[in-house]
C-alpha cells in the first residue's frame, strides 16, 4: 500500500511530462500505405464535399474528415496551433487576406517543392504561385480559387424598383462606384417593401479596396493613414451607408445569411467565391440573383491556398490530396457546381470554363465574366496584419451605420485603433 501511494504522484508527474512533449513525432512518413486519416480545415464554402467522397473511393485507405470554421476563427486557430505545435489539421486552407502572416513563418509548413510541387507549377499564374511562397522561396501553398470581381443583383427587386433587369443594361448603370450609389438612391426612392439597395459596408469596402494597386501595406509599411485609396474605399462605403442604402445586415452574421434568401438587399459585390456562398444560403432563390460587371472594373478579393503544416502525421499523403484537390479537373468540378473560380491558368481557354453559364444566376456567363477579371488582375500585397486592420476599419463603418458616429469621427478613431495594432 505504501508503495502504491508513492507510485501515484510519480505516474501523474510522468503523464504530465509526456503530455508536454507528446507532439514531437519526429519522422512522420510511416504507414502512408496503411489506413490514413486526413483532416482538411477550410472556411466558407470550398465546395469539396463531393470531391472528398470521390477521393476516398479512389483511395480506399484514406479517410477524410472536414473541419469548417468561420474565416477569422480559422486563421486565428491555425496560428495558435502552429505556435503550440499541436492541433492543426493535415491540410489547412489559407485565405489571401491572411496568408502573409503564415508565409512569414515557413518553418511551420512543409516546403511542397520537396514533394515535387515544382512539376505542377505551370498550372498557376505566376502571382498565385508567388503569394503562396515565402521570401526565401519555400512554397507552402497550392492555389485553389481566385477572387475575380463582379456585382450580384436581385433582378426581381430591380424590376419592382423600376430599374433595368438585363445584365448588360445593369452593368451600364454603374461604371463607377459613385454611379452605383446614385443607382442605389433611385432604388430607395422606389420604396420596395422590405428591401434595401445593398447589404452593408463590409463587402463594398473590401471590394473597392481590392481594386487599388496598393492597399493597406506598401512594402512592409502600413499606409492606412496616407494611402488615398484606403480613404476612398472608406468614404464611398460610408457615403452609401449615410445615403440610407444599407440593409444593415452585417456580413457573415445570421441576419446576412437570411438576407440572401429573403431578399432584404438587392445588390452585393461578388468575388467569384461569393457565388458559392449565395447558392448555399439561398437555395430557393434560383433565378432571382443575376450577375453584372462590378463598378470600377476588375479587381480581386480573396482566393485561397491549401497548405500542409509540418506537425501533421501524414504530410506526404496530405500533399497528394492537396495536389489532387487543386488539379484542373477538380477545380472545374468545383467551379461548375459551386462557382468558386479556379486559379488554374490552363483552364481559362477551356470551353468547360469559357462557355459555362450558371443556371442559378439566371444563366449568367460567369466563366467569361470572371476569367476576364482574373487575367487582367494585378494582385495587391496584403501584409501580415491586414486581417486585423480591416476588422478595425469595418468596425468604423459599422459605427457609422449604427448611428454612433459621423464618418469623420469614425475615421479618426479608425486611425487610432489601427495604430494600436502595430
Amino acid at each position: 500500500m505504501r508503495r502504491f501511494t508513492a507510485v501515484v504522484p510519480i505516474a501523474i508527474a510522468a503523464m504530465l511530462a509526456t503530455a508536454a512533449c507528446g507532439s514531437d513525432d519526429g519522422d512522420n512518413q510511416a504507414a502512408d500505405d496503411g489506413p490514413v486519416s486526413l483532416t482538411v480545415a477550410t472556411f466558407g464554402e470550398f465546395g469539396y464535399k463531393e470531391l472528398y467522397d470521390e477521393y476516398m473511393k479512389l483511395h480506399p485507405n484514406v479517410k477524410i474528415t472536414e473541419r469548417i470554421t468561420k474565416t477569422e476563427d480559422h486563421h486565428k486557430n491555425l496560428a495558435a496551433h502552429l505556435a503550440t505545435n499541436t492541433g492543426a489539421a493535415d491540410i489547412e486552407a489559407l485565405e489571401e487576406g491572411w496568408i502573409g502572416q503564415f508565409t512569414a513563418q515557413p518553418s511551420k509548413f512543409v516546403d511542397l517543392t520537396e514533394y515535387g510541387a515544382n512539376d505542377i507549377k505551370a498550372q498557376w499564374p505566376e502571382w498565385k504561385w508567388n503569394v503562396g511562397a515565402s521570401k526565401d522561396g519555400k512554397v507552402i501553398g497550392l492555389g485553389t480559387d481566385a477572387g475575380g470581381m463582379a456585382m450580384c443583383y436581385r433582378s426581381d427587386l430591380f424590376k419592382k424598383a423600376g430599374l433595368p433587369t438585363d445584365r448588360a443594361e445593369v452593368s451600364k448603370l454603374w461604371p463607377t462606384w459613385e454611379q452605383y450609389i446614385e443607382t442605389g438612391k433611385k432604388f430607395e426612392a422606389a420604396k420596395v417593401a422590405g428591401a434595401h439597395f445593398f447589404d452593408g459596408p463590409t463587402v463594398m469596402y473590401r471590394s473597392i479596396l481590392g481594386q487599388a494597386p496598393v492597399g493597406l501595406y506598401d512594402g512592409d509599411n502600413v499606409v492606412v493613414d496616407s494611402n488615398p485609396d484606403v480613404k476612398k474605399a472608406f468614404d464611398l462605403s460610408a457615403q452609401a451607408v449615410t445615403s440610407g442604402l444599407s440593409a444593415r445586415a452585417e456580413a457573415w452574421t445570421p441576419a446576412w445569411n437570411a438576407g440572401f434568401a429573403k431578399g432584404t438587399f438587392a445588390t452585393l459585390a461578388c468575388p467569384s467565391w461569393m457565388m458559392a456562398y449565395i447558392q448555399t444560403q439561398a437555395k430557393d432563390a434560383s433565378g432571382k440573383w443575376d450577375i453584372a460587371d462590378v463598378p470600377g472594373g476588375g479587381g480581386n478579393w480573396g482566393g485561397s491556398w491549401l497548405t500542409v503544416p509540418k506537425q501533421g502525421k501524414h504530410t506526404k499523403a496530405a500533399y497528394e490530396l492537396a495536389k489532387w484537390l487543386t488539379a484542373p479537373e477538380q477545380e472545374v468540378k468545383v467551379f461548375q457546381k459551386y462557382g468558386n473560380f479556379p486559379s488554374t491558368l490552363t483552364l481559362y481557354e477551356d470551353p468547360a470554363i469559357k462557355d459555362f453559364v450558371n443556371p442559378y444566376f439566371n444563366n449568367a456567363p460567369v466563366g467569361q465574366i470572371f476569367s476576364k477579371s482574373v487575367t487582367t488582375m494585378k494582385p495587391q500585397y496584403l501584409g501580415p496584419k491586414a486581417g486585423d486592420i480591416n476588422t478595425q476599419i469595418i468596425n468604423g463603418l459599422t459605427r457609422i451605420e449604427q448611428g454612433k458616429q459621423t464618418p469623420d469621427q469614425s475615421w479618426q478613431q479608425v486611425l487610432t485603433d489601427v495604430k494600436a495594432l502595430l
Partner: protein
Amino acid sequence: MTQLATEERAGPRRGLLHRLDVKGSPYLYIAPFFILFLGFGVFPLIFTAWVSLHEWSLLSEEHTWIGFGNYTKLFDDPAFWNALWNTVSIWVISTVPQLVLALVLAHILNQRLRGQTFWRMSALIPNITSVAAVAIIFSQLFGRDYGLFNWVLGLFGIDKIDWTANTWSSHVAVSTMIIWRWTGYNALIYLAAMQAVPKELYDSASLDGASSFQQLRKITVPAIRPTIIFTVIISTIGGMQVLAEPLLFGGNGLTGGSDRQFQTLALYLYEVAFGRFDFGYASASSWVMFLIIVIVAAINFGIISRLRRS
C-alpha cells in the same frame, strides 16, 4: 543469536519506517492534488508573470525583457479601462437580479409542490446547457430584424432595438444570458440551505399570520445568510471573467461590438492574446485582472463581515 542480532539491527530501522508511514503518508495521499495544482495553477501563474515582463509575441521566437513596460502601457490603454467598466456594468446588471430571482425561486421550490423533484431538476437545466448554445440562441432572440424580443416589443408599439449597437442594450442582452444560466444554479444552493432551517419557525410564523413573503424576509434570509455570502462571492468572481457570452453575441470578431461597447475584460484579454498574439501584453492584463478580482473579493468580504457583526 544471529537472529537476535538481525532483529536488533532491524529494530530502529523498522521504527523509522513506521514513523515515516505515520508522518509521511498523509502528505502522499494529498500529493496528487497539489502536484496537479502546481502544474496547472501555480506554474501558469508564475510563468504568466514572467511573460508579462517581456515583449512576447506568439509569432516570433524572440522575447525581449521590458520590465513593467506592458503594465504602464496597459494603464494608458483606453480599451482596457473601457473593458473594465463594461465588466463592472454587466456584473451589476446580471448579479443583482440573478441572486434576487434565485432567492425567490428557491423559496417557491421549498414549498410543498406536486412533482417536487421535477421542478428542482429543471432549475438546473439552463446551467448544464452548453454556454455556446445559450449564447447563440440568445443572440438570435436579440436579433434586430427577426429576433423574438423585438417582435414582442413590436406588439406594444415599441420600435426595433438594435441590441448589439448600443452600450446599454448590449449589456442588458449579455446579462440576460448570464442570468438565464446561473439563476437556477444559485436557487438550488439556496434551496439546500433552506432545508436546514427548522420547520417550526415557519409553522409558528404562519400561526401568527405572517405571509409567505414576510417569512422569506424575516426567517429565511437571516437563516441562510452565510450561503448568500458564498453565492455573492462566487458570482463576483464569475462576473469578472465573463467571456463566452459577449464573444458569441458579437457574431463577428473579438472586439465586442463596433465600438467595443460590450467587450469585457476577459474578452479584451482574449483579443490581445489570440487575436494579436501579443502574449506579453495579454499576460500583463491577466495579472491586473487577477488583482482586480482579489481586490473586489476582499471588498466583498469586508462588507459582508461587517454586516454579519452588526
